[in-house]
């Protein structure tokens, strides 16, 4: 038994396994969004009239969400710092802030979706104001699939945070705070790409 215990610490590489695995997962996720963003960009370059559609997105809510996500990334860094000092209470507090940030993001997003759907911009239908112009409807398809997939990642990140909060309350898996933080930064990073592409470029 002792040989086994000894061996497991004999990894040639000092990067912890969880962190290594997560880096690869993040790289994989970025490639998925990369494919989407590339497809969107190529279409956007082909159809300059999409900028009229992009004018209907709310830059204010988009910017607000960017700030919210950036702040939640800051709080998760503080949670990681606290976890490194083995301060469970503080780590939990900061992680709660992050989860709240995610929640605010999702609320903003639902308000935004509601407005857009009320204006007639849905996943499939062309805008009512531009009836007959089917080409423009694809902007909204891309808008919903990109922000929707991103929001699913926000939800996934929040669920992971809550699970890890429960775990560290029991005093185990404190190192996972860092992993949740890494994932959250990735979600943040993807949004940094989506925000200018969908909201600013008009």
């Amino acid at each position, binding site marked *: 038994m002792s040989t086994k215990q*000894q061996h497991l610490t004999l990894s040639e590489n000092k*990067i912890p*396994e969880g962190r290594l695995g997560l880096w690869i*997962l993040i790289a994989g996720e970025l*490639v998925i*969004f990369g494919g989407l963003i590339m*497809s969107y960009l190529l279409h956007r370059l082909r159809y300059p009239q999409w900028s009229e559609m992009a004018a209907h997105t709310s830059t204010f809510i988009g910017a607000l969400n960017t700030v919210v996500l950036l702040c939640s990334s800051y709080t998760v860094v503080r949670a990681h710092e606290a976890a490194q000092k083995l301060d469970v209470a503080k780590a939990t507090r900061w992680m709660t802030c992050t989860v709240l940030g995610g929640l605010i993001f999702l609320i903003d997003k639902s308000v935004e979706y509601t407005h857009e759907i009320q204006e007639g911009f849905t996943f499939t239908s062309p805008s009512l104001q531009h009836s007959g112009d089917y080409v423009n409807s694809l902007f909204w398809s891309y808008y919903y699939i990109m922000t929707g*997939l991103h929001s699913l990642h926000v939800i996934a990140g929040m669920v992971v945070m809550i699970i890890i909060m429960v775990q560290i309350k029991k005093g185990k898996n404190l190192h996972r705070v860092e992993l949740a933080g890494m994932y959250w930064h990735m979600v943040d990073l993807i949004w940094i790409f989506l925000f200018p592409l969908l909201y600013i470029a008009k």
Partner: protein
Amino acid sequence: MEMSTHQQSFWNKYIFSTDHKVIGMQYSIMGIIMAGVGGFLAYIFRYNLAYPGQSIPLFGHLAPLQYNAFVTCHGMIMVFWVGMPILLSGLGNLLIPIMIGTDDMAFPTVNMLSFWIFFVSALVLLTSFFVPGGAFGGGWTMYPPFSAGGYLNRNPDFFKALFSGTSLMILAVALEFVAMLMGGINFVVTTINKRAKGMTAFRMPIVVWFLNIASLIFMFSVGPLVAGAFMLLLDNVVGTGFYDPNRGGDPILWEHLFWFFGHPEVYVLLLPALGVLAEILPVFARKPLFAYKPIIYLALVSAVLSVLVWAHHQFVSGIDPRMATFFSIGTILISIPFAGIFLSFMATLWGGSIRMTVPMMWAIGFIALFLIGGLTGLFLGSNTFDIYAHDTYFVVTHFHYTLFPDVFFGFFAAVYFWFPKFTGKTLNAALGKLHFWCTFFFFNGTWFLLFFNGLHGQHRRINDYSSFSLINMEPYMTFEKISTICAILLILSQFIFLYNLFTSLAKTKNPELTKNPWHSATLEWTADSPPPHGNFKVYPEVYRGPYEYSVPGEVDDCYAQNVPGPSFENNENL
């Protein structure tokens, strides 16, 4: 030892096991079962091609739409549910941990989940045969508009569309990708972090290197297709227009997303099988592998090139001729690293004391057949020739000459080589040789003549040429008939293998005989046969490279990797 005395229930030991060896075997067995399904589909439409319109034994009459669905599903199953689980997940799980000298994968639970997601994906695919409308029949590449909501339905019935053959196939493929991604993360993390003491990167066996390179190619090329599949699914069930040109979408986008993954996938399947060859050839030539490090570098070069050549599948899709030239050159360049790898295999055999055992026969058969596939690939890589031969049986024959040796010869070489180690039992060598010769002969009988049919212009998606009175296929029907008879015999000769497998499994274990029957130097042969959960009693320490054969004065004329002493690594002298 705590591990060995710990009794696990049957359920935990064989079904929901986290042991890498059990998971590897689960993947392989699932692959064999799916190969049975894929082979049966092939038999049905192969028979229909030779005897169009006639009733097929064991099946009955084949409707044209069924023909399409069967061809499509045959391709899907053989690539994603046979090639991938057997070569990447099966071999990766069985070999990586034990060959680098550790007890298990880095994330055993993720590993178990990976298999069960794969299992569900196979069930989803098989279910698609039984939904109204049948399985998807638009070709395994799933090009829109065939795959996009039955001619781009703008207001599909959500649930009806979700349970159509098309959506189920997209879902099955997506689930399979998730499973393989989980497996791939495991492979790479395990290899980076859990190597035995002394197992430096350049002391790892080639197969471990190649499995990791294949996993990395897979993980970094599949992303855009995952996004694309999500978009295709929405086109089907919600009615979006991502691939609908009337709404500004583009069907060619799917071709790019598909082949950006689809071409690297070829190397995902090829590299593990080449890795198996790199393990087998030195053992039975009793020589160190020629050019160990250059092989690794060549494989890395091929990995980089593999993501730059995808559009050679689209030469007739209206691609700009200047781009086509770029992709032609890239495609032909990619033959250089593989020619290098094959050359080093030849050089390994050169002057060796060759032992024609069963695994060695499969390995050499692989090289012989893959040569034909690879060389015809050079023709097709040139856009001028490809426009002529596109979608004919020349293409189909070309990729069967690459994928069949790759998946089946590679797999059988691995099975005959590692079976004693992982089961503690031996396979019958005479039956193995019979199996090899039957497979080799009937495979060539099935496919070689079809090159000529392809050059004559036989299209890959036409089930019955009698409907086309202007095209005279009559002189080529003889070749079709020979091909069909050989295909049936090819499938039947696999029963020799199954018989051999089951009779061997019924024998009692013989740990002494199977500990290191081939006098091989890599770490898995130093473990017990079969290796227990946890693999090694005492964790091995590594002192040398994996291929130190023909060392003068040694009993086995080779040094196992864990034998202490100065290394004979002569890689630097090459």
